[in-house]
């Protein structure tokens, strides 16, 4: 049943591509309906499955001569991420509600690309055949390019191209690894579970693992391959940023877990020698993840463009996800998956606030300029929304981020104590940059005077639309709900993590 998320989205995209010109208002309603349908299916599937293990969905022979099948299944992790995708999709469409307002805006194309991207993402999360997973992964690349290049803002063509090329390069790396694995295992299956059981020689895993992991980690925004993320997020229109930071980066992390770590668990083993204290790929990538946490936070601290602050904060949060995955422990991976969900929702909320609610009205993202606008008084809804979203993003207890971060830190402490400490520092810096951005943008003490010293009156802005309110309630409510009752998700995640290959979880406590 969950497969209908994929089919609905692609069908919707196709219909929208052929939508008659001049009926743009109807187009966005249609897109919203499709996204809601996807969310409903995802939610129903999630609830119906409860805390079961993997739920098989489809299995058709595709190219039997090569062992490629159209196989879909969803374990707890996939179900959680499908839910996230549904939420992000609905919220994204709500926050793009005004795309069709202007003449010649080609809203139907926007929503068509959007839904195609969503369909691809659903597909990745539900695929069990690696070829199929790769196909969906690649399908997601092209709509991203067009969404940013056509409807984006700052340096959109550059940002779009960079994003597309980085993603494609990452996927090329993954393909090499997949092809090598396929060939080594006898070339008769591409099924994830069957390949996972094949005893690849350790020497093979030692190079295949870092290759495939890096390929996916590029999309997850791992340092130092993260540079596409801030540029891309800033260039993208709000809905695309929400999707990019919220869901697409999770594709990378999901791939790291589902493909790299599951197929080649022995790639994480110690090398037998150590260089400056680094003795395994696991340590290498954990180090890169931790650097990403701190670097992302530190750079976010000095940004003057509001959207860049959020963009770099995404890099920092994804570093935490990757660190959690590499702890190879139940609690660490639980935390990583929960963080994927939490950050997905929160990143969407933050980009929505900055990009849509603030930028649409003030037409600037410069913190210096915003600090003169007394937005705390002029846009109280946006200000308080950012306070809540910022607090959640900081990891305040009561919101979804806290439990996830605690779990990752505990897992990291068992595996890499020093990294856990540094990660903790990064989280604290996270408090600082969120604080700074919030202060400067909304509650600044800068006197509201222009360059001549004359007082600037509190500007009047358009009121918050119902669509924006709905989107906000959806996302903020979800974060609060999960923050107060994380069992809703953990009950599905924990069995799925326990079911990961034994060789993987043996690496940690």
């Amino acid at each position, binding site marked *: 049943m969950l497969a209908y998320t994929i089919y609905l989205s692609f069908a919707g995209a196709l219909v929208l591509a052929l939508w008659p010109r001049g009926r743009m208002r109807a187009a966005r309603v249609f897109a919203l309906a499709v996204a809601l349908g996807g969310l409903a299916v995802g939610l129903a599937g999630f609830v119906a499955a409860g805390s079961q293990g993997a739920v098989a969905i489809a299995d058709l022979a595709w190219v039997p001569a090569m062992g490629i099948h159209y196989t879909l299944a969803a374990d707890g992790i996939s179900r959680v991420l499908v839910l996230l995708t549904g939420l992000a999709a609905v919220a994204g469409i709500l926050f793009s509600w005004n795309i069709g307002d202007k003449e010649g805006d080609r809203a139907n194309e926007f929503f068509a690309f959007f839904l195609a991207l969503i369909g691809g993402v659903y597909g990745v999360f539900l695929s069990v055949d690696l070829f199929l997973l790769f196909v969906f992964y690649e399908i997601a690349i092209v709509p991203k390019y067009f969404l940013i290049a056509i409807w984006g803002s700052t340096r959109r063509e550059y940002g779009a*191209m960079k994003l597309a*090329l980085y993603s494609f390069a990452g996927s090329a790396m993954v393909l090499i690894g997949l*092809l090598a694995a396929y060939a080594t295992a006898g070339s008769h299956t591409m099924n994830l579970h069957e390949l996972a059981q094949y005893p690849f020689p350790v020497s093979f895993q030692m190079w295949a693992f870092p290759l495939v992991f890096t390929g996916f980690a590029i999309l997850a925004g791992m340092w130092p391959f993260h540079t596409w993320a801030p540029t891309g997020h800033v260039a993208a229109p709000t809905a695309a940023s929400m999707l990019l930071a919220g869901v697409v980066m999770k594709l990378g992390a999901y791939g790291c877990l589902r493909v790299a770590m599951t197929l080649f668990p022995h790639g994480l083993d110690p090398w037998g020698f150590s260089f400056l204290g680094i003795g395994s790929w696991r340590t290498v990538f954990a180090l890169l993840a931790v650097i990403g946490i701190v670097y992302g936070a530190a750079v976010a601290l000095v940004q003057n463009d509001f959207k860049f602050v959020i963009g770099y904060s995404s890099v920092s949060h994804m570093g935490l996800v990757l660190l959690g995955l590499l702890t190879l422990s139940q609690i660490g991976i639980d935390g990583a998956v929960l963080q994927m969900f939490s950050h997905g929702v929160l990143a969407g909320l933050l980009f929505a606030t900055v990009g849509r609610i603030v930028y649409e009205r003030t037409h600037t993202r410069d913190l210096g300029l915003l600090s003169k606008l007394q937005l705390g008084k002029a846009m109280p809804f946006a200000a308080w929304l950012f306070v809540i979203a910022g607090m959640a993003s900081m990891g305040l207890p009561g919101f979804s981020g806290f439990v996830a971060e605690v779990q990752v830190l505990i897992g990291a402490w068992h595996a890499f104590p020093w990294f856990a400490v540094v990660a903790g520092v990064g989280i604290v810096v996270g408090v600082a940059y969120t604080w700074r951005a919030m202060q400067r943008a909304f509650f600044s003490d800068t006197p509201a005077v222009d360059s001549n010293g004359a007082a600037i009156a509190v500007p009047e802005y358009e009121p918050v639309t119902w669509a924006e309110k709905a989107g906000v309630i959806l996302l903020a409510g979800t974060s609060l709900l999960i923050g107060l009752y994380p069992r809703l998700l953990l009950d599905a995640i924990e069995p799925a993590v326990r079911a990961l290959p034994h060789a993987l979880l043996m690496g940690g406590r």
Partner: protein
Amino acid sequence: MNSMNYGNLFAITLPETILEIVSLLVLIVDLGWLRKSAQAARMAVACWLGVLGCGGAIAWLMLHPEPVGIAGGALAASSLVAAAQIGILVLSALVLLLSVRVEFSRNPGEFVAIVLLATTGMLLVTAARDLLVIFVALELLSLSLYVLTAFAKSSAQSSEAALKYYLFGGMSAALMLFGFSYLYGLTGTTSLTGIAAALASQSVSPLLVVALVMVAAGLGFKVAAVPFHLWAPDTYQGAPAPVTALIASGSKVASFAVLIAVTGAFLPAAYAGQGASWIVVLVWMAAGSIVLGNLAALAQTSVRRLLAYSAIAHAGYMLLGIAAHTAQSGAAVLYYALTYALTTVGAFGVIALVERETGSDRFDAFAGLSRRNPLLAATMLLYLLSLAGIPPLVGFWAKFNLFASVLRSPSAGVWGLGLVALALGASAVSLYYYLQVLKRIYVAKPAQVEPIAVSSLEMATLVLIAAAVVVLGLLPSVLSGWIPLG
């Protein structure tokens, strides 16, 4: 000497014969009855006759797939050969359909006849298994193509391109013939199987190496591989669009088919160890093509030249498959060649239409195409993404199949992996320049906003090709009856 079973020979070469007869028919009809008619009508009649001829040949091949070597092994007929030939005929038919409304020629009958002659050459090349037959067929093909390249008599570019093509091609043909003569000298036979057997018992001599290099030169020229690629950008740019489509599609398929056969001959099982030098030559050509093709394409501002350099790159990928020299990789190369050719015909069809409207093939001419003719833009989107290797289009599948077969060949090893890595990396680079074109089409604002008019025949042809690109990408098994996968 065996007596020729002429009945058999006739049966085997019936497709070529059909084409020959139809080409003569076209000439007669055009120069005889339609001399006084309007240009457009003459072209239409000639093209449709040509399409019918191709159709007849296809029908014959599909009804009579007989795997039997003939004429002392001069020609082969197997399901793979039949598949390649059917593919070539389909490509030529598509090119003819896209030529119905061309205006560069006042001699439609000749045009179509020479196209059919070229197609005949392609069919023969695909089936040939004897050095002399290969040479004759290649010459038939090449000479026809030289003439076709010059067909736009009012365009200086066309003549210049044809001259370059001819000079380069003539030189390569001469080199190849020279190489063939050395091979004959070394082995005493012109049949590929005979050569294989004779080489098995010889060691590598400098003469053999020279012969191999020269043959490589000749064949490398046909497929536009580095370093024999210099003719490609100018020719692709100067020739009239349908001719470029033909050069880029059918000619490529035929050339790769003969490369597969020749490689098979130079590497009989017992000779495998000493055949390494041929493999090394192929690998260098492949790597060079991949690198140079992609890098040079990055700098282009003319879509035709961009596609020319990308053709060099694609030739590089296919050469990797040939270097792997297994039965599977051969089939994979053929699959790749056919699907690539199909996509290229579509792409040049779109280019032809844009050129007709705007007069140029530079990036700016494509600006805002998505607003001027959304369906046309959509087909170009599909073609270019397929060339880049984006799923779920056929280009991705072809690449996957090809690289999988390369890695599975027993002699792949670390080098094979490295080359596949190079190819995939280059594919990532290629996305950049394909996106550049797509960016113009979808993102940029058009200079003029009038819609681009396209006849329903042309649109139908392009949509058919696009549909095939998508369907074959989603269901690759459709072709597996003819070209085995896996």
